[in-house]
């Protein structure tokens, strides 16, 4: 008679362990996944074997969507917000846009810039929920004669003068090369020669030189 009682107890203990595991996984999952950053520009990035992570501070991200529209965003950090404000004030002054301090503050709060310079005033009056690639035409960079990215990168470089700046380019798979080239031209004209491109990680194909190199360096580390 004592044996069946022990068996019953053991099943109850099993349940609690299972519960623990489930909640452990749940809490771990909640803690590790970051809330998705306001991604108003949907972009399918290409894959590459690059394995360095994208910096999330002191970075300016240029998004190039599938229609070839260009959007500019500054990383969301207290320090970066100040820089973004500086950038906008600079742009406002050098292009005589006539933005009021309130409009600049509104633009700083918005997740990205996505209009030609002349329409920046209109963008400042949009609600944050209205800011998406559907509503905004993007910064003109399609042709070389009216490449406003040059102006934006100039302002960015000036705002980050003396501190570290990472330029990040996030392009869509099907974006055409000429727009990308115009962005490169904007970088070059402002003497920003180093930048990063966002990709999804892919595995190194077996048997290639990089694969062998990685194996050798791992062996050396051991």
């Amino acid at each position, binding site marked *: 008679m004592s044996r069946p009682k022990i068996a019953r107890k053991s099943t109850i203990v099993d*349940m609690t362990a299972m519960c623990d595991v489930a909640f452990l996984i749940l809490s771990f999952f909640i803690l590790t996944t970051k809330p998705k950053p306001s991604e108003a520009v949907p972009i399918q990035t290409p894959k590459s074997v*690059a394995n360095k*992570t994208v910096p999330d501070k002191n970075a300016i991200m240029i998004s190039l969507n599938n229609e070839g529209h260009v959007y500019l965003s500054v990383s969301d950090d207290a320090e970066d917000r100040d820089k973004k404000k500086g950038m906008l004030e600079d742009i406002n002054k050098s292009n005589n846009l006539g933005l009021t301090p309130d409009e600049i503050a509104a633009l700083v709060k918005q997740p990205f810039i996505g209009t030609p310079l002349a329409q920046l005033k209109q963008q400042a009056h949009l609600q944050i929920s209205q800011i998406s690639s559907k509503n905004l035409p993007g910064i003109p960079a399609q042709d070389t004669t009216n490449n406003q990215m040059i102006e934006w990168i100039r302002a960015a470089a000036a705002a980050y003068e003396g501190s570290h700046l990472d330029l990040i380019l996030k392009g869509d798979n*099907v*974006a055409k090369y000429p727009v990308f080239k115009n962005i490169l031209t904007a970088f070059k004209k402002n003497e920003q020669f180093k930048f990063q*491109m*966002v990709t999804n990680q892919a595995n190194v194909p077996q048997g290639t030189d990089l694969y062998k190199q990685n194996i050798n360096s791992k062996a050396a580390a051991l």
Partner: protein
Amino acid sequence: MAEMDTSGGGGHKKGPGVKKAKKLSTRVDLTPMVDLGFLLITFFVFTTTISQPTAMHLGLPDDKVKPEDQNKIKQSGALTILLGKDNNVFYYEGELLPDGSNFKATNFKNIRDEIIRKKQQADTNLVVVIKPNDESTYKNFIDILDEMSINVVKRYAVVDISPVEDRYIRQTQGEPVEETK
């Protein structure tokens, strides 16, 4: 657990019957818990891999460098890769011959073999020149840069396409050729 299956049809009607029902109910409870566990694990695995984008670093050359300071490419070690539309890849070794006989068409699957072959042949002289045309996509460009890092090509350059090369690409792709460029 194995004890559960031993349900003997006994003479006792009350005793064993009650025990059976209790044991069965605990067993049923376990399955959704396991399901939930696995569901969470799969979900967690999927979301974490997606939310970790990586960055590919690229340095641009300074256009203001005087021509005499620039490095000259040895023709024996040069491989020029051209990117066209619909993921087409073209390449030639050394200089493009006037009749275009060394202009070859390939694709992203086979270009790696070509790079490896050229790398073994040219050794330290290898320089890959990448020329995307106006109809190539950003993905093509990243893919070819990726090939450079996969095959550990130390020296490569991105150069604007010349009208002659663009015409060859258009001809090979079967498009009408515009003479004015």
